[in-house]
């Protein structure tokens, strides 16, 4: 291959004239993690609510929850982010719309990215939460109800604590997916890790160094996150309980 390897490029000053390229990548990693964290919080909260709602017997609430999940998981993330960034502000009242558009960078891309990623991931979390609750023996809900607990109390004290433990493994892979999916936000101008790597390769033309560095960083981040979540999973594991092997849905 006619390629001029130059790993030293990582320690050369980047276009902003101050930081080295490796710092630029790490800066990008910061945005990756921050966006993933914010979107993760939205996804967990909203996804749990929708997932729970879909296991109740309020017919129209269940339908609404199903509609949400179908809508958000059947459109590619790439397209959703584009719509959040370019189309939604145009559909809002003018003043509000321009206020959103005037947000200084990177917030102008960060906010739509977090909303888009959050709502997209919420649909997937909702699926997991629903599956988790439904994988519990039907008798658990009955036992709670038979004790005199209200529906809300049954969810809070009986169903959700077990459901969340059971879906820890699929939620772990959702977290990995979320971190990786933030890379799609580069299409609306968020300079996260992949975008930083691309920008590095376009300015320096050292493509393979840039992408290798990014790949290695992603692998390290994933190792750390997966092990953190495994540890969390172990530390909340119920002694003596071997849960039904929750079948992880796929997804990226």
């Amino acid at each position, binding site marked *: 291959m006619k390629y001029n390897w130059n790993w030293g490029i990582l320690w050369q000053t980047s276009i902003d004239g101050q930081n080295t390229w490796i710092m630029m990548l790490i800066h990008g990693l910061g945005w990756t993690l921050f966006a993933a964290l914010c979107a993760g919080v939205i996804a967990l909260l909203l996804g749990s609510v929708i997932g729970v709602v879909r296991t109740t017997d309020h017919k129209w609430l269940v339908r609404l929850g199903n509609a949400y999940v*179908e809508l958000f998981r059947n459109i590619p993330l*790439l397209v959703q982010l584009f719509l959040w960034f370019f189309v939604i502000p145009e559909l809002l009242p003018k003043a509000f719309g321009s206020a959103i558009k005037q947000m200084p960078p990177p917030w102008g891309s960060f906010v739509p990215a977090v909303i888009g990623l959050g709502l997209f991931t919420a649909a997937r979390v909702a699926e997991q939460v629903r599956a988790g609750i439904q994988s519990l023996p039907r008798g658990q809900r009955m036992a709670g109800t038979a004790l005199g607990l209200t529906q809300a109390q049954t969810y809070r004290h009986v169903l959700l604590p077990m459901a969340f433990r059971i879906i820890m493994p699929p939620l772990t892979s959702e977290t990995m997916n979320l971190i990786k999916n933030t890379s799609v936000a580069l299409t609306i101008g968020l300079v996260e890790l992949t975008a930083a790597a691309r920008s590095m390769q376009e300015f320096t033309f050292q493509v393979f160094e840039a*992408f290798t560095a990014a*790949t290695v960083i992603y692998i390290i981040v994933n190792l750390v996150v997966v092990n953190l979540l495994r540890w969390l999973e172990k530390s909340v594991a119920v002694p003596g309980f071997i849960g039904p092997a929750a*079948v992880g849905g796929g997804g990226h």
Partner: protein
Amino acid sequence: MGSFDFDVIARSLGYLFREGMVFTLTLTALAAVGGIVFGTLLAMMRLSSFKWLSLAATGYVNLMRSIPLLLVIFWFYFLVPYIGAWLTGAARPIHVGAFASSVITFTMFEAAYYSEIMRAGIQSIPRGQVWAGYALGLNYWQTMGTVVLPQAFRNMIPILLTQTIILFQDTSLVYVLSITDFLGAASKVAQRDSRLVEMYLFAALVYFIVSFGLSLLVKRLQQKIAIVR
């Protein structure tokens, strides 16, 4: 934005579907079949009692799952010619078309996900089924082929298909290679004619209709093929 110019869609409809959608669907179908076959092999490797086999499969799956698809597409696009050369013993990187390259990429990438599904599927078959197969005198491959995999596969069909719908949406990322899949076609027209909003709205609609239609089909199928237990 004021006025939408949806005329651009009418003008490019033929191109969008005859080139873009056909590419997307072909790629999805080939990668799904290849991914499931390779994924099943990976799952069997992971569950095998040969430590190094299971380690290799685990490493592969974890690697694939920790890199963003965008980067995976990129790597495969440039490395496949070298892998091809290495496999065929050719002196030069062999020429691999964009289509072949994306089929290989998605097969290899999705196999990691399909293998997790098949692994769960195999593990969901009660141990007793395996014992029953062995007790009849079936050997490993016969037990796998006639007892375990048919059930695992049938139990997992809904999840496999759901993953395939995700694959269908993921193929849109090949646009980074400037390959004309459906989204690539849409974005090419959109960029050339400066009609991004119209095109993306249309693309969202098309993806939604196809994916949602497929997921309805999955539900139907699920009710039909579920094994009576």
